[in-house]
C-alpha cells in the first residue's frame, strides 16, 4: 500500500471516479437499507403520535368520523373542567415522591456499594420490584393495603394509624399509591446511583481520608458533587414519570376514592378510552407535556445542569 503513487491518466481517473461514486451510492443505499426497518417503526409509533396528536388536540375526533377542526375549543373546555384541575393538582402532589426517592436511593446505593459479603443478594432483592409488572405490583399492594392487611398491622403496631384500608380513605389514598411508586422505584434508581458512585475516582476519596476528612465531609464535599450528573438524570426521570403516573393508579384505585387519586393522565385516559373524545384527550396530553418540559427545565436549573464541579 506504500508504493509511490503513479500519476493516473485522464481516462483512468474518470473510470475510477465513476466507480468510486457508484460505490458510495451503493454504500449509501446499503446503509439506508440497514436503517429502514427501524426508522419506519420509529416514525410510525414515535414521531407520528407527536405530530398527529398535536393536530388532534385542535379537533373533535372519535375515530369513526374524520377529525373536525375546532381551534382552541378543547383547551377552553379543559381549563373549565374542575375534574382536570383536580387531576392536575394530584399529579403535582405526586412530585413529592421525587426528592424522597432520590434521597433513599442514594443512601441505598451507598449501602450496597460497600464491599460486604453477600451484597449481590441484597442488590438483587432490591431490584425485584423493578422487574415486576405494574399489574402484579398493583394487585399485591391492593392486598397489602386491605383493612386487616400487612400495612395496617405494621402501622397500628407503631401506633401510627388505626382504621380502614388506606386506599379507601380519600385523604390517604394518593399517598398510599405514592408509597408503591417509591417502593417499586428505589431499586431502579439505586442501580443508576451505583453506576454514578463507581464513576467517582476512589483516589479522590482516599486522599481526603488521608488528609483527615471525616466520613461526612467526604460525602458532602466529594461523593455528592460527584453524583450531581446522576442526580440530574434521576430526578429528571422521576419527576417526569411522577407527573405522568398512571399504571399504579389504573390498577389500584381507578382514580378513586372520591377522585382523590385522579391524576391528569388518568383524566386524558378516561376522556379517550371512556368517552371516545380523542381531541380533548390529546389537548390534555399537550398540557401534561408542557408541564413536564417546564419541570425538566426547573430540574436542570436546580441541579446546575448536573455539572460535577457545581
Amino acid at each position, binding site marked *: 500500500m506504500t508504493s509511490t503513487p503513479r500519476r493516473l491518466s485522464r481516462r483512468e481517473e474518470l473510470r475510477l471516479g465513476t466507480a468510486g461514486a457508484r460505490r458510495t451510492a451503493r454504500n*449509501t443505499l446499503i446503509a439506508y437499507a440497514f436503517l429502514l426497518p427501524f426508522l419506519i417503526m420509529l416514525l410510525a409509533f414515535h414521531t407520528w403520535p407527536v405530530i398527529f396528536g398535536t393536530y388532534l388536540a385542535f379537533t373533535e375526533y372519535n375515530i369513526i368520523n374524520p377529525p373536525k377542526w375546532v381551534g382552541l375549543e378543547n383547551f377552553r373546555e379543559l381549563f373549565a373542567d374542575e375534574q382536570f384541575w383536580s387531576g392536575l393538582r394530584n399529579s403535582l402532589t405526586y412530585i413529592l415522591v421525587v426528592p424522597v426517592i432520590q434521597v433513599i436511593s442514594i443512601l441505598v446505593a451507598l449501602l450496597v456499594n460497600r464491599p460486604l459479603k453477600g451484597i449481590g443478594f441484597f442488590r438483587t432483592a432490591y431490584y425485584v420490584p423493578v422487574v415486576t409488572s405494574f399489574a402484579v405490583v398493583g394487585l399485591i399492594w391492593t392486598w397489602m393495603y386491605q383493612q386487616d392487611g400487612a400495612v395496617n398491622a405494621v402501622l397500628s403496631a407503631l401506633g401510627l394509624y388505626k382504621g380502614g384500608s388506606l386506599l379507601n380513605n380519600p385523604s390517604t389514598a394518593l399517598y398510599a399509591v405514592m408509597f408503591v411508586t417509591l417502593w417499586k422505584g428505589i431499586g431502579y434508581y439505586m442501580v443508576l446511583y451505583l453506576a454514578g458512585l463507581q464513576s467517582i475516582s476512589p483516589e479522590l476519596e482516599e486522599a481526603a481520608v488521608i488528609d483527615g476528612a471525616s466520613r461526612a465531609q467526604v460525602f458532602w464535599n466529594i461523593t455528592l458533587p460527584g453524583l450531581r450528573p446522576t442526580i440530574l438524570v434521576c430526578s429528571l426521570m422521576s419527576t417526569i414519570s411522577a407527573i405522568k403516573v398512571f399504571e399504579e393508579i389504573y390498577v389500584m384505585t381507578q382514580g378513586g376514592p372520591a377522585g382523590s387519586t385522579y391524576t391528569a393522565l388518568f383524566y386524558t385516559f378516561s376522556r379517550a378510552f371512556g368517552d371516545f373524545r380523542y381531541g380533548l384527550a390529546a389537548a390534555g396530553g399537550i398540557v401534561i407535556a408542557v408541564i413536564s418540559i417546564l419541570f425538566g427545565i426547573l430540574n436542570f436549573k436546580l441541579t446546575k445542569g448536573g455539572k460535577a464541579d457545581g
Partner: protein
Amino acid sequence: MAEPATLPAPGGAAEASATPDMLAHARLAADLKARRARRARLGNLGAYALLIVIAMITLYPFYWTLITSLEETGNIYQAKLLPSSVSLKNYVEVFTGTTLPFWRLILNSVAICLLGVTLSVTLAALAAYPLSKMQFPGRNLIFYAILTLMVLPNESGLIVNYVTTTKLGLLKEINPVLDTLRQYFAIVMPGLASIVGLFLLRQAYLSVPQELIEAARIDGAGELTIWRRVLLPLAMPTIAAFAILEFVAYWNSFLWARIILPPGSQTLPLSAGLLELSGMFSTNSRAVMAGAVITIIPILVVFLLGQKYFMKGLEGAVKG
C-alpha cells in the same frame, strides 16, 4: 486500603534495630488498627441490619403473596410469616376455573415476548451498524434526529397508536388463526423501535476495531455478512442485556394490550389477563394470587440468569 506505591515503606531500614521508642509506636499503631477493625465490624453489623430491613420491605409482599396463594382457608389478607396450610388447590383453580384459560395467557405472553424481543433486537442491531461503522451522507442528521425524538413528549402516544393500529386493520376479525397473529403484532408493534437499544448497540459496535471490518471487506464480505459474522458476535453481551430488558418490558406490559384488545379476548398477555382475572375472581383472591406468582416466576428466572448483563446494560445506558 492499598498504600500508594511511590511512598517509601515506613521504617524499612530501621526495622532491624528497633528502639523502645519505636516499639511504643508499633504498639500504638496496632492499637489504632484494632480499634479501626472493631469500628469497621460494628459498621458492617449496622449495615447488615439496614440491608436486611430494606430487603424485608422489598421482598415481603412477594413472599406474602406466595404463602397466601398456597393456603386453602384462613383470614386471607392477614400479615403472616408462615402459611397456615399448604396446598396447590388455588393453582389448579387458576388454570381451570375461568372462561379465559390460564395456559392460553401464558402461551400468549411467550409468543408476544418471542416476537417482540426478536424483532426489536434485530431492528436495533441492524440500524446501529451504519450509524456506528459506515460513512454515508445524512448519517449525523439521522443520528441527531433520533436523539431529539427521545425527548419529544409522547402523551398522545396511546391514543394515536390506537388509531394507527386500528387503521392498519390489525384488530379486524376475519380468520381465527390470522387474527391471533395480527393481534400479537398489534401488541408488539409500538415498542419495536427502541431508541435505548439503538444507543446501547451503537456503543457496543463503536468499540469493535475498524480494521476488523476493513479486513472482512477486503476479503470480499458483504455488509450483511460483516454485520452477522463480525459485529453481532462481538456485541453479544450488549445484545443479551438489551434482549433481557426487552423481555422484561414485553412480559410486563399490560396497558396497551388492555386498550387494543376487547375484554375477554383470547390473545391477552399474562399481566393483562391477571387484571381481568382479578375482576372475574372477586370471590377467590387466592387464585389471583396464584396467578400473580406464576406471572412473576419467568421474570425472576430470566432476571437471575441474566442479571450480570442486565445491570451492565442499565449502567451503560446512564454512562452513555
